[in-house]
């Protein structure tokens, strides 16, 4: 079985216990306006071009089947990410994000260093994109990794309920994003309703898989007492909740958009001071921290 990923990052330290290898799966049903991994949105491979280092030699245009429509030395409209320009570029500043690999290949790659990471109390984390979009591939990879590898999932929670149920059984730890408890705000800033997400979140709260709620704290969007309180109320009493983590928005989230020749239009005031309140969680008997 094949899946699509855009990166395997080594030595991740904010994605679960210990040091971890994090697999970034490609494709996401959400369109969060603060997304810092824009190459994870589309399920299809995409060409990324670094703006620095281009000497204007024109080799990319020479080999591009759509060369005539290329603006400057960027990406032509209708680019299929065929990759011809990637190896033609003498500066190697072009690459294709998105690699199709089999579960066997991925598992074998992760196993190469599994002992090292296990020695640090760590393991493997699946992130994205949205892993739920490639649930069968992920589950097959987990099966191949075996029970000795500690596995964690980073998810938006937006996905098929059965797939999510299977994930809660298969993973050792789940890092679950809660972007907004208000459906209107959720639709406005992520493009989808939070109905399915909250349903999965409630399943998580009832179950016995250790989990963490994560709030990407976006200025003016969800840095409100109302949101914090709603999360605290949802999480209160959940037996397997480890803690709530707040991840304050940072302006560098926009760094990769230019590489995809996309405009970064976050739709909120990016430089507004962020309101953080951990006391609400403390009052509900929930551990919390800012990452």
């Amino acid at each position, binding site marked *: 079985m094949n899946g699509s990923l855009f990166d395997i990052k080594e*030595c991740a*330290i904010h994605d679960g216990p210990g*040091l971890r290898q994090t697999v970034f799966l490609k494709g996401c049903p959400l369109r969060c306006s603060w997304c810092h991994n824009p190459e994870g949105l589309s399920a299809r491979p995409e060409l990324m071009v670094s703006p620095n280092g281009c000497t204007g030699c024109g080799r990319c245009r020479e080999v591009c089947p759509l060369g005539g429509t290329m603006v400057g030395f960027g990406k032509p409209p209708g680019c299929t990410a065929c990759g011809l320009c990637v190896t033609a*570029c*003498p*500066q*190697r500043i072009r690459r294709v994000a998105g690699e199709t690999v089999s579960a066997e290949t991925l598992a074998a790659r992760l196993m190469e*260093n599994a002992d*090292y990471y296990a020695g640090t109390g760590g393991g493997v984390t699946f992130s994205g994109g949205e892993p739920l979009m490639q649930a069968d591939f992920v589950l097959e990879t987990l099966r191949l990794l075996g029970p000795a590898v500690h596995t964690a999932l980073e998810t938006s929670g937006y996905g098929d309920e059965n797939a999510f149920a299977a994930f809660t059984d298969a993973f050792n730890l789940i890092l679950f994003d809660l972007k907004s408890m208000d459906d209107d705000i959720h639709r406005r800033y992520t493009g989808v309703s939070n109905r399915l997400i909250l349903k999965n979140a409630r399943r998580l709260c009832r179950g016995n898989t250790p989990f963490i709620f994560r709030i990407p704290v976006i200025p003016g969007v969800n840095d409100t007492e109302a949101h914090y309180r709603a999360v605290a109320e949802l999480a209160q009493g959940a037996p397997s909740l480890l803690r709530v983590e707040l991840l304050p928005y940072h302006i560098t989230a926009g760094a990769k958009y230019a590489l995809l020749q996309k405009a970064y239009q976050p739709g909120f005031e990016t430089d507004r001071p962020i309101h953080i309140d951990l006391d609400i969680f403390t009052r509900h008997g929930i551990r919390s921290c*800012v990452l």
Partner: protein
Amino acid sequence: MTDRIRRLKRYVITDKAHHALRFAPRDEYALAETFAQSGMGDMRRAGRRLIAMLEAETPVLLPEERIVLTRRNPTVFSMFTRAELERLPKERRIHERGDVSNIAVDYTRLLNVGLEAKREEIERCRAAFEAAGERDRADYLAMEAEILNAVMALCDRYRALAEREGRADVAACLAQVPRHAPRTFPEALQMFRILHFTMWLGGNYHNTVGRLDRFLYPYYRADRDAGRLTRETALEWLEEFFISFNRDSDLYPGMQQGDNGQSVMLGGRNPDGTSAFNELSELCLTASLELSLIDPKMNLRVDRDTPLDVFTMGTRLTKQGLGFPQYANDDVVIPALLAYGYAPEDAYNYGVAACWEFIVPGTGMDVPNIAAVSLAAAAQQAVADHLRQAEDFPALMAAVKANIRAQADDCMEHTKGLYLFPAPFLSLMMEGCVENGMDVSLGCRYNNYGIHGTGVATAADSLAAVRKYVYGDHSVGKEELLQALLRNFEGDGDLLAKLRFDAPKMGNNDPEVDDIAVELLDAFADSLEGKKNDRGGVFRAGTGTAMYYLWHAVTLPATADGRKRGEAIAANYSPSVFARVKGPVSILQSFSKAHLGRVCNGGPLTLELHDTLFRNEEAIQKVAVLVKSYMERGGHQLQLNAVNRDTLYEAQRHPQEHRNLIVRVWGWSGYFVELDKEYQDHIIKRMELSL
């Protein structure tokens, strides 16, 4: 940090208010002219110069300070005239500035006995030599006694001033030290200050500090046990003490501004297997963290039994962005020092030179940075001269190894006839100098020389590319490569990109290249093994580079790793500057494969970690786990930098607003904005390829 320390720090570090107390610079050579006119010998000159420097000092007490001695005369008098200094290198082998530098003295030889008792001992030895008709030795010791008198006289002037100004605590301390042995921790700190101050006055540089947490610990323990100090009051003393290392450091002679070599070594394993890491070690890390100052530089000895807590304390300090602590692995270094011939009591007592070279206190007149072999040039020349004829890759490797051997032979040959300027004050803290009436510059128990090896990654990457493309898949022809290298890749963009970006690179845990690096370092160690220098010492191969990485890069033609002529090579034991590496774990894996105990002169793997990695206490503990894992894999030495590239760019644009930004340069940390643009750019470049 107490308010008093905060005020002291502002006075000395931020405002540099004490600079206003300095006298006008004097003629550096005037004294040497009088020496030359009277035909004075070098031993006598060294002593007279130091005494003149001590006499040129006029006491001053800075506001609120309790550990005194501040330089006022900014000029270090030369012991040789300008003409003599020009002539000397033509006649003799001179190392750097000629002065004894970069060694570790045994401070306890003075610290624990007091200068008066030492003078009496000197007098006894002098009388014995005099009776035996050993005139030179007797004269030398007479001069040593004079030096001690001059040190005590300066301290008496300080005491008198303290009394006049009503600074009773300072006066009381100086009534005890340096004349008598210190009784308390604060007196020991003041005594150390006096000794270190005098070392700098004598023209010696890279005056390392050593195992502070061992030789000051008895004073600390006694004061704590007697209730004279609490943890907090001891920390305050220690912080004032650390500030004193920065007071005159801009006046210190050396090779580079900021490169003071005031290295402290903490922790370590005792011969009986117990740990030497103690409360004072912890306090030193805390003081360094709270103060965030360049000096003194912290080094930390660790081993397989070191608890994670110690690494965590170290990582908190790393987060400050000073580029230290630097870690040394006892499990690798001690066996290596034993193999070099150090006695167990010395091997277990090792510290670190100004940068990273492993040295032993009180017995080592080692010169751990006497020369350097360019591994990159050895590979480059082998490709240029032998690729055509070499039928297979092993044949090419044989040529590389022959080049390494030839360079090593050349380096060793050029160490002959080393002349070091006499260092009478340092000699008082080195084994045998008083007993034998002989200056340490002439040798001590150990007289080993260290030879750096630069560009191992450039060499391994180049050879891996040749093995893969020329001998492996034949995608690059021999002539094609040789011509491109000769042309410095002009018009060879495709080949350049393939070599530079697609070829295997050290730092990615890729056996295709890492195995070659192992072979290169083995060959380097082999080329020095069993050889003796003309002082009877051995040669130690090392993975450090010092400045050589810049010098060697300038003359190095284009290399088969896709590096153009003149482009930088990496500092120390690190991936090539343009290698795209997967991350720190792969780097640690690549750089722990070599037999590092055989190339153990010193030279750390350098890891640049983005400062966001240190976001919270949990993350800090994970970085500590990463550091520990390098040691568990057999790494010898590790140095980490927490850097944010944006901050560096910002500092280049607005240097005035970033005067306190400290970065690790190679073996030392300096203020970023004070560095030459060349170094600034190199550091930024290094950053761009890290996390």
